[in-house]
């Protein structure tokens, strides 16, 4: 008989996020509830949580770039990113982001996943450039449009990264797939796996790029 009680933890996460409690609090409560429902003593749950947190410090390490980005912003980095786009002819918000999408996917496919990212490139460069391109063509943006352009900049980075990186043979997810299948006696080379990441990568590019160019059209129509 399977014990379904620990699944209550998942329900707590969904509920807590939906009711907009502080997410850190939601996650901690869900973790402790899940552990207790799985008949772990409290100290054991606390230990697993602490161990898991400590083992995953690398996830937070990326934010050591903040002093550099902040310092450059103090001296006008975002303004300069805008000025650069302002001088370019034919730069629309959609085209700027499609170009970024392409670069992001190609670099990720070459194993260079950390050359870009939300903190390193999207906040200081990509989002200001996208906003500048939109403003150049459509004038001052209302708040909703500006919010949409910024969100699309972040989304473009994510799509480019997720659907580019698996083409690289030495990325951790390919190694994970290889290892998981090997446990069942299915031997595959990383190359066999990464080749099959290409069709999805092409679909991802086509879908996201059409949405971005569609956004150009919609902004133009709204302007008239």
């Amino acid at each position: 008989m399977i014990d379904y009680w620990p699944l209550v933890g998942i329900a707590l996460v969904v509920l807590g996020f939906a009711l907009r409690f502080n997410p850190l609090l939601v996650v901690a409560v869900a973790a402790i509830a899940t552990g207790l429902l799985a008949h772990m003593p409290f100290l054991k749950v606390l230990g697993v949580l602490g161990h898991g947190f400590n083992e995953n410090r690398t996830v937070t390490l990326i934010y050591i770039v903040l002093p550099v980005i902040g310092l450059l912003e103090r001296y006008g980095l975002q303004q300069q990113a805008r000025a650069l786009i302002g001088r370019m002819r034919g730069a629309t918000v959609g085209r700027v982001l499609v170009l970024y999408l392409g670069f992001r996917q190609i670099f990720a496919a070459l194993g260079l996943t950390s050359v870009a990212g939300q903190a390193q490139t999207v906040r200081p460069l990509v989002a200001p450039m996208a906003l500048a391109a939109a403003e150049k063509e459509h004038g001052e943006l209302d708040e909703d449009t500006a919010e949409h352009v910024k969100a699309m900049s972040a989304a473009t980075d994510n799509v480019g990264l997720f659907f580019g990186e698996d083409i690289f043979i030495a990325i951790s997810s390919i190694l994970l797939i290889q290892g998981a299948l090997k446990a069942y006696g299915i031997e595959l080379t990383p190359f066999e796996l990464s080749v099959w990441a290409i069709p999805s990568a092409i679909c991802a590019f086509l879908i996201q790029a059409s949405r971005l160019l569609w956004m150009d059209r919609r902004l133009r129509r709204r302007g008239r």
Partner: protein
Amino acid sequence: MTDIHYLLAGLIFASFAVSSVRDTDNPKRWGNAAFWALVAVSFWLGDILGDTANGVLVLALVGLAGVHALGRSAGESTSTEERQTFSERYGNRLFLPALIIPFTAFIGTLLFTYTPLKSSGLIDPKSVTLVLLGVGVVIALILSYVWLRPPPLAAVDEGGRLANAIGWALVLPQMLAALGAVFAAAGIGTTIGALAGEVIPHGSVFLAVLLYGLGMVVFTMIMGNAFAAFPVMVAAIGVPILIHEDGGRAAVIGAVGMLTGYCGTLMTPMAANFNIVPAALLELRNQYGVVKVQVATAIPLLICNILILYFAGFHL
């Protein structure tokens, strides 16, 4: 020597704490300072503290965030007009320090992958990107100080300003990873795998593919991470049904199965480093703003992936 990037990270988070204390206009400055100081302690001493003490540290972080002890900083160091003037003075050279970080990652990765450096054993392959990130940050900081000659504590204050703009969301991804560890210890994966196993339709390849794909998406959305979902779905459906029973192509089931999970990553707030932190970084009003715009990409892409699984896995 191997953990030098943790020392550097601890130092930078400690500097966020210092900057928070200096921000005298902010009524919640002590809450901010305590939060970043705890993160710094975690980077410096995490491996010495032991699991229980680390757990207590986690609860302290959660407590500070839970009672809303953190607050955004009020002002900006330089006005928009000043920034405009600076940007005209320094021009495109401002991009240079910003590009040093990706450039260091680029050159470093190439050097590491394609030269004997890899086998020299000087750098642990698992932490090479982190070490390169640290090196890039240090070079960029030195260059910026030499060239722009900012006030001595400018980098501290600017870093702290950005960190406080993101706030508690900055440690949410790490916290979710810790939740994943608890889920794993509680056997959630096995339970979900068993649930999925019970509803498998035998005999219909398409339905089995559909269930495998949707299972990847839903489980990824719950865990915030396709890596946690993949082994479970492979054990429940991928290997026994799709590969063994229906004779599907293993490389497709593996590779495209994982990518189907990534469609789930695009649609969940649980993948906080991709979906929630950017909303804070870009100062969006809606903390779910990024997830919201990603759904319209994720769903058509999910359909494409399921079709690829079906046709490339079974009919090519």
